[in-house]
């Protein structure tokens, strides 16, 4: 260890140069960081739901809808129609918008006295006068194809639906800009659909990083200053942690790994966790007595490098469990880059800090008054624990087991709308969509078969009827609607034609119509049924998916084959994998850490004791989630393993100190000293991290807020587990041992 320390101090010029160059390099790449909040991209590309969604997106030119809601006192007023026409034309010219459907360009198939009119509901090149528009309104509201699909029943709301292919976020932004720049009088516009929601999340993520991160830093600095009363303690950790965050995010940008709602938390975690390594080194430096600062820096580093390394190692093990335990790409990325970030924080702490300390002149020895005060409090706490050890472990066990019951109440839910607060415009918009049109999120059913065959079309028709019976599914649409309308116009009633030839004749009439390309492929061997569902994902969505799956299973045969996808299905896969990944990550983390402990302590009982704070923390964490109805989602799923990773640091510190003190003292005395000194350090750390993370309460994203609160709870409970419960349990086991030996 001495050699490493000497090397670092002796080669400081080169090391500082390398660090500076790397920092500039990563800072340069930092500008290129991309943000991705698209839930469907979080699943692996090989996921069947994602695969089918991609296929539909590619073949049918886009699988997501950006919807602009137009509200006025009557959408058939001439000025509103003109505005819709203007927007429709503008949207059509946006790169990435493949189709626009609105009142002024929707295909209309009319049965007229002299025959069949395939045209537009409203001729955009020749907008009729007000009188005619009101006639069209009556006609349109009578037709199922428009009512509640494109126009609300009270004709106060209508939609402009843009089908999007390509960069959803960019296209949605352009749509928003065009709409806001248009001079729309007496018309309100709202933006619905996933692309807009994704953008809203993106903007919030950026805002979070810009505003919250400095705050987290500030809070941590403040607490450190209050604890140690020295500026050096405050600035040095900030340098090492700040640089490690910069390197990590810079590396992500360099590797083109996007920031997600999860990875966006990495800098905050580094702030909270990484600062501890720096503090250890500084504290040790303060304890050293040598006059020569260079030598002091070397000595302190060589003594402290092992415990700091162990603390970093166990935390890394906690976070690497995500890499192996998760099916979700972004959670794997979170694991990889948090681990890397901690490695960076460790390396920077053991280089920059001793180098700076070794060059500092005449540092005043820190009085550490505040810390002395804390030590006294902890000493009293220690006495109290020793006196009431039975109460402590019984109460601890009751709390732990009580909260375990809460874990059974945990719900998993991946509801995109959940990201937004109740009063956010996205939530309000979604309400409008659900009230008037059933929802904004499409589900897609792909049918493969000969779509010129009446029997296949009848099967599609049956599927429509089945979807209509499902609660929460609205307005199935497919080529069927047009075929039936045209068959009716040809005088044979609103039904599927009875021969292949008739169907072919009708297809011929529709050929080249833009609308058709969204519904069937060129050689008529496959087609799409699209229906709308609410944006939320809940039990109802689960039920819908199950029923559709069962239906498909019962229907598929040699003649035709249905497949099913959509955001709801992607959410469901996300949900299932969340639960699975949480369990697997946790198990991997705990097993890995237990093995670590065995190596460190060479004792089975000590290793089991080391898990006490972790189990206590986990029980309270998941119990709280269950009782408070906080769902297990993309953000909270990480908490379990973070709890394990951070909690083990406390265990290691405490048990290390305890075994060291045991060599000279009886168990009681050893415990008291451990609680007094290591307990104080743990308390500082708990409050630093806890209050640092509580800053996340001010986030705009609900999952991030919950994450902040729950992490605070996790820190507090693992801290209590290590400083209060663990000593009581140690005493209890000692008692049992002595009783057995007697």
């Amino acid at each position, binding site marked *: 260890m001495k050699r490493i320390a000497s090397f670092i101090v002796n080669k400081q010029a080169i090391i500082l140069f390398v660090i500076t160059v790397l920092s500039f390099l990563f800072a340069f790449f930092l500008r290129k960081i991309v943000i991705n909040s698209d839930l469907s991209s979080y699943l692996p590309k090989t996921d069947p739901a994602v695969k089918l969604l991609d296929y539909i997106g590619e073949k049918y030119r886009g699988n997501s809808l950006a919807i602009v809601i137009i509200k006025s006192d009557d959408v058939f007023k001439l000025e509103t129609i003109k505005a819709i026409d203007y927007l429709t034309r503008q949207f059509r010219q946006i790169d990435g918008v493949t189709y626009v459907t609105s009142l002024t360009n929707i295909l209309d198939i009319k049965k007229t006295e002299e025959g069949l009119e395939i045209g537009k509901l409203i001729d955009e090149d020749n907008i009729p006068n007000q009188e005619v528009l009101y006639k069209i309104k009556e006609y349109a509201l009578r037709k199922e194809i428009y009512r509640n699909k494109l126009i609300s029943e009270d004709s106060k709301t209508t939609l402009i639906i843009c089908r999007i292919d390509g960069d959803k976020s960019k296209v949605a932004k352009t749509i928003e800009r065009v709409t806001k720049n248009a001079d729309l009088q007496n018309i309100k516009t709202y933006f619905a659909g996933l692309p807009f929601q994704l953008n809203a999340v993106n903007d919030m993520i950026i805002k979070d990083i810009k505003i919250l991160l400095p705050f987290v830093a500030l809070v941590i600095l403040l607490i450190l200053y209050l604890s140690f009363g020295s500026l050096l303690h405050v600035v040095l950790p900030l340098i090492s942690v700040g640089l490690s965050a910069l390197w990590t995010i810079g590396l992500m940008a360099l590797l083109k790994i996007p920031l997600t709602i999860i990875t966006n938390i990495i800098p905050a975690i580094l702030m909270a966790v990484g600062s501890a390594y720096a503090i250890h080194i500084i504290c040790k430096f303060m304890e050293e007595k040598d006059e020569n600062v260079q030598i002091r820096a070397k000595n302190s580093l060589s003594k402290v490098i092992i415990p700091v390394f162990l603390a970093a190692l166990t935390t890394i093990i906690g976070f690497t469990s995500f890499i192996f335990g998760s099916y979700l790409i972004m959670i794997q990325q979170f694991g990889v880059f948090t681990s890397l970030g901690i490695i960076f924080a460790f390396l920077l702490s053991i280089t920059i800090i001793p180098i700076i300390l070794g060059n500092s002149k005449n540092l005043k020895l820190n009085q550490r008054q505040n810390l002395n005060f804390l030590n006294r409090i902890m000493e009293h706490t220690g006495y109290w624990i020793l006196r009431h050890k039975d109460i402590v472990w019984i109460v601890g066990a009751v709390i732990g087991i009580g909260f375990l019951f809460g874990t059974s109440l945990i719900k998993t839910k991946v509801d995109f709308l959940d990201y937004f607060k109740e009063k956010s415009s996205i939530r309000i918009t979604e309400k409008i969509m659900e009230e008037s049109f059933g929802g904004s999120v499409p589900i897609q059913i792909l049918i493969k078969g000969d779509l*010129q065959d009446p029997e296949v079309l009848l099967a599609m028709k049956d599927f429509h009827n089945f979807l209509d019976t499902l609660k929460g599914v609205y307005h199935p649409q497919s080529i069927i609607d047009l075929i039936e309308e045209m068959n009716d116009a040809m*005088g044979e009633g609103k039904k599927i034609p009875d*021969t292949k*030839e008739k169907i072919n004749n*009708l297809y*011929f009439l529709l050929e*080249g*119509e833009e609308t058709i390309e969204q519904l069937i492929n060129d050689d008529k061997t496959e087609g799409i049924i699209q229906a709308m569902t609410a944006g939320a994902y809940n039990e109802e969505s689960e039920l819908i998916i199950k029923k559709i799956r069962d239906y498909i299973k019962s229907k598929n045969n040699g003649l035709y084959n249905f497949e099913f996808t959509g955001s709801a299905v992607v959410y469901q896969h996300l949900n299932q994998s969340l639960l699975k990944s949480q369990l697997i990550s946790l198990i991997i983390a705990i097993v890995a850490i237990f093995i670590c402990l065995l190596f460190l302590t060479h004792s089975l009982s000590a290793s089991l004791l080391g898990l006490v704070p972790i189990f206590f923390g986990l029980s309270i964490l998941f119990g709280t989630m269950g009782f408070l109805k906080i769902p297990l989602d993309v953000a909270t799923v990480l908490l379990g393993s973070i709890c394990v990773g951070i909690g083990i640091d406390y265990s290691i510190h405490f048990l290390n100190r305890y075994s060291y003190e045991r060599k000279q003292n009886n168990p009681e005395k050893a415990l008291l000293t451990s609680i007094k000194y290591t307990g104080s350090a743990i308390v500082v750390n708990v409050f630093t991290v806890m209050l640092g993370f509580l800053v996340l309460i001010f986030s705009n994203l609900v999952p991030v807020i919950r994450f902040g609160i729950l992490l605070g709870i996790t820190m507090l409970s693992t801290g209590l587990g290590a400083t209060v419960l663990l000593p009581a349990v140690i005493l209890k086991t000692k008692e049992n041992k002595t009783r057995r030996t007697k």
Partner: protein
Amino acid sequence: MKKYIKITSIFFVLLAATQTIAAEESLNANGVLKKVDEVLMAPKDLSALMKINIINKNGDVKNREVQMYQKGDNKRLVKVLAPADQKGIGFLSLPDDVIYVYLPAYKKTRRIAAHVKNQKFVGTDFTYEDLEAKKYSEKWQPEGLKNDGVFYLLELSPKPGHISEYARVNLYVRKDDYFPVKSEFFNKKGEMIKKMEILKTEIIKGYIIPKNYLMQDIRSGNRTEMVMEEIKVDTGLKDDIFTERNLAQ
């Protein structure tokens, strides 16, 4: 001061000169467009077998064969001969945008309103507007004329009152016989959205008749090739060819 007067006077002289040049150009442009219309002056009637290949961006080809009869600039009958599953489908276009369609599977004729001119003609990249046999000068006004030695390039914009899906059309006109061999169609954003070339013409009874067309849809990457065979002109097609009854036969 003198310098200023000099500069302003030079400026005014230049301005006047450009004005005259512009006026001359548009006069010329109008002249060229008139000539084009004369050359295109459709024969009294025309019939032809049209072989159509519709090729999408992936290179998939769909073949069509239709028999077309045309009289004047507003009567047209089209009968589909191939593919087999569409054989017998027919269209009849009459003045004032009246279009009838016959569907053999239903054995019925129905009127369809194709007031939407940018609808595609039988699934090709040609819209009804592209196929209208109307004089250019009725619908378009020239904005400028360029001359590159081989072609006149006419830049056309829709005349007030003429509704078109195109905001501008560039017409490349052969200088020797005033035949427009290439048209480029632009949208309001100034992007070229379609390009039509007449690859081959034939002189029949003194008319220059286009024989091979190529229409490219720039945005979708699709293209349509159309070849006219068995072209007959001025055979005195009777009006009763252009009736619903005949359509249904």
